[in-house]
């Protein structure tokens, strides 16, 4: 126990300040509000992450959001285990044809109003894999997408900015 306390105290707090997200930034990361829904999420966002065919690079960086440097839960963002508990789907990868139905069903299982965030270049455009016999390409080819966060993979900071932007846009508090 003493060893643990010593290590924890020596390390201190490494969590960094929240990144600034201004309107121009919001514009840049391409937050698109497809449907105006009055309902608010009370500034918190429950996210169900769905890997629809990624190379797992995006997952590594999404995991990093939970490390003590970014500590994404302090912004009210938390990852949930079921789409039925989620406000938003965070989808990575080109959608492989073998995941096409699973992704559609996950989207249907998510209660409305819901937000779909395409994370990573593959999810935004199909990326290196594109459309083929095995890949449907971009997520929007399968389900409607509200927010796009490009990058191969997007850095945790890119993801954080995209998520914060999504919450702002959704709660009508942008600007």
């Amino acid at each position, binding site marked *: 126990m003493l060893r*643990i306390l010593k*290590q924890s105290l020596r390390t201190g707090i490494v969590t960094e300040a929240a990144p600034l997200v201004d309107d121009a930034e919001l514009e840049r990361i391409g937050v698109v509000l497809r449907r105006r829904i009055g309902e608010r999420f009370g500034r918190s966002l429950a996210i169900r992450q769905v890997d629809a065919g990624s190379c797992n690079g995006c997952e*590594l960086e999404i995991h*990093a959001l939970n*490390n003590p440097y970014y500590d994404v839960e302090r912004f009210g963002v938390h990852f949930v285990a079921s789409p039925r508990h989620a406000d938003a789907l965070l989808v990575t990868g080109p959608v492989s044809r*073998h995941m096409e139905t699973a992704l559609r069903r996950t989207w249907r299982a998510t209660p409305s109003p819901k937000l779909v965030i395409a994370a990573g270049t593959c999810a935004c455009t199909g990326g290196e894999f594109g459309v083929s016999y095995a*890949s449907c390409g971009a997520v929007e080819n399968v389900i409607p997408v509200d927010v796009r966060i490009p990058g191969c993979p997007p850095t945790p900071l890119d993801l954080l900015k995209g998520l914060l932007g999504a919450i702002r846009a959704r709660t009508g508090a942008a600007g």
Partner: protein
Amino acid sequence: MSRFDWLSEYLARLEDDHVLVRRGSAEALAPAHLLELDAEDWSRASRVACTFDTRFVAIWGDPREGHVQVYACLERERDYLVLSTAVSLGQPVLASLTPCYAGADRMERHLQDLLGIAVLDHPDSRRWTRHQAWPDDAFPLRPDFPAAGRSPKRTAADLDYRFQRILGSGVYEIPVGPVHAGIIEPGHFRFQAVGEEVLRLEERLGYVHKGIEKIAVGRDPAGLARLAGRVSGDSTVAHAWAACMAMERAAGCETPPRALHLRALMCERERVANHLGDIGAICNDVAFSFAHVQCARLREQWQRRSRELFGHRLMMDAVVPGGLACDLPAGAAELLDADHLALLGTLDALFDVVEDHPSLDDRLLGTGRLSQADAKALGCTGYVGKASGQGFDVRRDNPYAPYDGLDVRVPVQTAGDVAARVRVRMEEVRESLNLMDRLLAVLPSGPVAVPLPEPSVGAVGIGFVDGWRGEILSFVRFAEDGRIARFFPRDPSWLTWPALERLIHGNIVPDFPVCNKSVNASYSGHDL
């Protein structure tokens, strides 16, 4: 001991068995020794190889005019042997290696699904990589199959795969996936359980099949390196290196020594980053969040440094054909030396806790035990193999530059449980730090890239790299104009996924996450 002293004995045994070797070559697929056989001798040749206690590495097919050239790679006493045969498309059948080599099972079914070669006497006739995206009479890797596919309509769910069931009083089934509860890749697990005890686990993978082998066809070398770097994102350096190694061998490229040293440096950085993340995640799966948070912190610092010095947090696209995309910035070596020293100090304190903590011992010792016999039968490499007595490491045993000048220490454990896999990973982190210091100390000067010479039509090459998960094989054949005709990457996960099915047996269902994490096989690297 001279290299390959068992080859002549093997050839003599083949002759005794009336197996005709059409061609033997030490150069064509160097460092492996290539033997070309007739298809009807395939079974006999592999049975004889099996009696030589060879380890199965991979089997793959390469579609040519009117036939498919099938290759099977084996290893014994540090030497690679590749058996090859032409299978006519008029009669696309070949004897199965699975009765001799358990690890060949899914790779042969993959060959069957993608190239339409019926594998005879295979103990499991079910499809593997194919779900519902293409019909059973179409074979995506055949040249006449368009990369865009033939049916643009929606792909149905894969409902009629026949899982094996256990019937009996109190036996129940738990289906899990493909969409899992955590931030993890998709796949399906089917448990048969009684109470909390797992009687059987069956994996169903292929959900992230993205057609990597097909969309590689026609790419230029730089395009293939980018694709190889996305076979499995967490092994981007190792896969890109293996593919570039294969291309460089096929094209006769002399890669500059500085580039090779820096590739090794990045590969070891990748190993450290992944082991740190996984050691923390394993601890987290048994509710020891202290180690998880500390490891995540160290991993983040590590990745930030990678971005600063190598241009990318995961070092993606840093390895290119002929060398590296860019050199280290000035002063990098001093920064890295200081990093390594600081990390070693922190890890001494942290690993001291992980190695000796009652609540971790209670959950990890004896959990998810993979027997040495199972690890050997499947041909597991990497930390899964090393924790179960299988010490093969390409860096030490079939060394490629720059590892040929370094003495790589390989940790081997025999317990085969989750705790042993954690110990192997901790040792590997320490050894990687040691190797990186030595690489930096002898870092050659000079260029970091040369242009890849134009490869001749039909040139083939093979690359073996020890990634953080274990041995990676990469096969490349060139067509005209330096374009890729065939790319096959064999991630070590092909052989550790079946190990997970075996090691979970008799454990309780709630221990599955920690067992799975301790193996951490790649879905993407396997599904291709």
